[in-house]
């Protein structure tokens, strides 16, 4: 079964005269990690809003086409039920935190309380997740008195705690240090290993290349390319379209231009290292 299907979506936000999404169809299969990339304004967050039913229930506007979650149109889901299936992280980390709880622990526990999980289990779960995401020491702190990156970690932790089948995550690492960013990607990979479906919007293209199964490239409200990460990201044409590609792809391209082709455009450092070593060996022979 598909986790989420978008069928011929066209959508305009209220009072705007252009389509934020213009003819988007895509099936997101269960148990895969999808990366959505593209310039700002291309419609990435709009896709996230659709998957969570925020369009058209919160954002009005003109919507054509259908969104199905686990085979059922999104508007036929009861909102409380949908929340237990799709975990959603907003783009702006500063708005995700409720601001009504006094400690980081309580902030993470809100969702669990709503699910009716007992206290003991809740404490155990919050402990496990905060350790994993590097905020265990902050558990007693007021969530409004945290650094930017610490807040973003709390937001991520509270959604993880919900243990949904599907995660829709919009730029979860924008305020994170490089180490924290990589741990978020590792956690997402482990979600996938638990057969969860992850749809992640991110600009950190090097990590998308390393961890995502499939990449979808959006531009001006349209999907301009999609497929396995290696296939999509090794297309140099993306550079002309102002879509970020890994530095190793740019490097591979420059090697080619200098007459030192690596045979392919490497999308990760590991790949690049292998290519360069092979080339050096070839030269020595």
């Amino acid at each position: 079964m598909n986790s989420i299907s978008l069928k011929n979506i066209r959508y305009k936000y209220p009072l705007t005269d252009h389509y934020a999404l213009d003819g988007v169809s895509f099936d997101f299969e269960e148990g895969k990690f999808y990366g959505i990339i593209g310039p700002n304004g291309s419609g990435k967050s709009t896709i996230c809003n659709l998957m969570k039913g925020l369009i058209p229930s919160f954002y009005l506007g003109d919507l054509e086409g259908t969104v199905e979650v686990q085979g059922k149109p999104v508007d036929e889901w009861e909102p409380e039920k949908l929340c237990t299936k799709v975990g959603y992280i907003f783009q702006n980390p500063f708005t995700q935190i409720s601001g009504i709880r006094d400690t980081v622990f309580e902030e993470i526990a809100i969702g669990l309380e709503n699910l009716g999980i007992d206290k003991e289990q809740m404490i155990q779960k919050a402990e496990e997740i905060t350790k994993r995401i590097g905020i265990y020491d902050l558990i007693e702190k007021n969530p409004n008195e945290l650094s930017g990156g610490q807040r973003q970690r709390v937001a991520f932790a509270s959604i993880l705690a919900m243990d949904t089948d599907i995660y829709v995550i919009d730029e979860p690492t924008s305020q994170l240090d490089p180490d924290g960013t990589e741990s978020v990607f590792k956690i997402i990979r482990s979600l996938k290993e638990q057969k969860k479906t992850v749809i992640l919007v991110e600009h950190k293209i090097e990590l998308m290349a390393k961890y995502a199964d499939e990449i979808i490239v959006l531009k001006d409200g349209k999907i301009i390319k999609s497929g396995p990460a290696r296939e999509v990201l090794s297309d140099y044409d993306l550079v002309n379209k102002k879509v970020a590609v890994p530095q190793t792809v740019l490097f591979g391209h420059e090697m080619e231009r200098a007459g030192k082709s690596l045979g392919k455009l490497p999308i990760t450092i590991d790949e690049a290292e292998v290519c360069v070593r092979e080339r050096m060996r070839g030269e020595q022979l």
Partner: protein
Amino acid sequence: MSIELQHVHFRYPDGTLANEDLNLVIHEGERIAIVGQNGAGKTTAVKLMNGLHKPTEGEVIINGINTRNKSTAQISGMVGYVFQNPDDQIFKNTVRDEVEFWSRYNKLDEKEIQSRAEWAAKLCDIEKYLDINPYEIPYSTKKFVSIAAVLTARNPYLILDEPTAGQDVAGVECLSKLLHYMEQDGKSVITITHDMEFVADNFKRVVVMAHGHIIADGTPAEIFAEESILSEAKIKKPQICELSTRLGLGNIMKIETLVNKL
């Protein structure tokens, strides 16, 4: 002329010691990056530089003036600060009002108000948003609105707190251009960022923070060569630098240099 931190400590009311014994001199016209782990104390440190915080111990001296005896308004006339979260800063109903706010508040004449607003909007590439409510535009663009608003004050020192967060290729290019422009104009820009590629491409001086301390101050090549600094500050080398290290070619920052070496 400089910003000077002398044995600066800062403690938040809840008891968190966020900065410990910071010592730093930033000269007028200098361009520096501040990097380091989440919670290292970067935002706290720059808020001390523009008078939003006063040190619990030690002195902060801006162009010879100690911030201790001055109001935030007096200091912010010299040091402009663009908040990490644009929503902490933006409060007007249109982008235009936001970008004109400083000039109006300071009673500049109408012509000057317009010319500063246009200039700042152009530098930040937000001209097409001028008549829109800032709350309707995405986070990454909003960041440029908050930068433009601070630019209009034309302070000798400008602090950007995480301007690269959430930016696409065009946004990062726009920031590079802005840094270049400000340098030509003799202005100092202090940029906090987690984007190491941006650091390698745009800065010659990098200050590294961890656990409330400054743990290093040097060129990107010097910083990225020290594994102990990288692991303590939870930062990583840019890809090209990592690749050249693995190939035994040292810490190369630029793609062209690496291509030429191979």
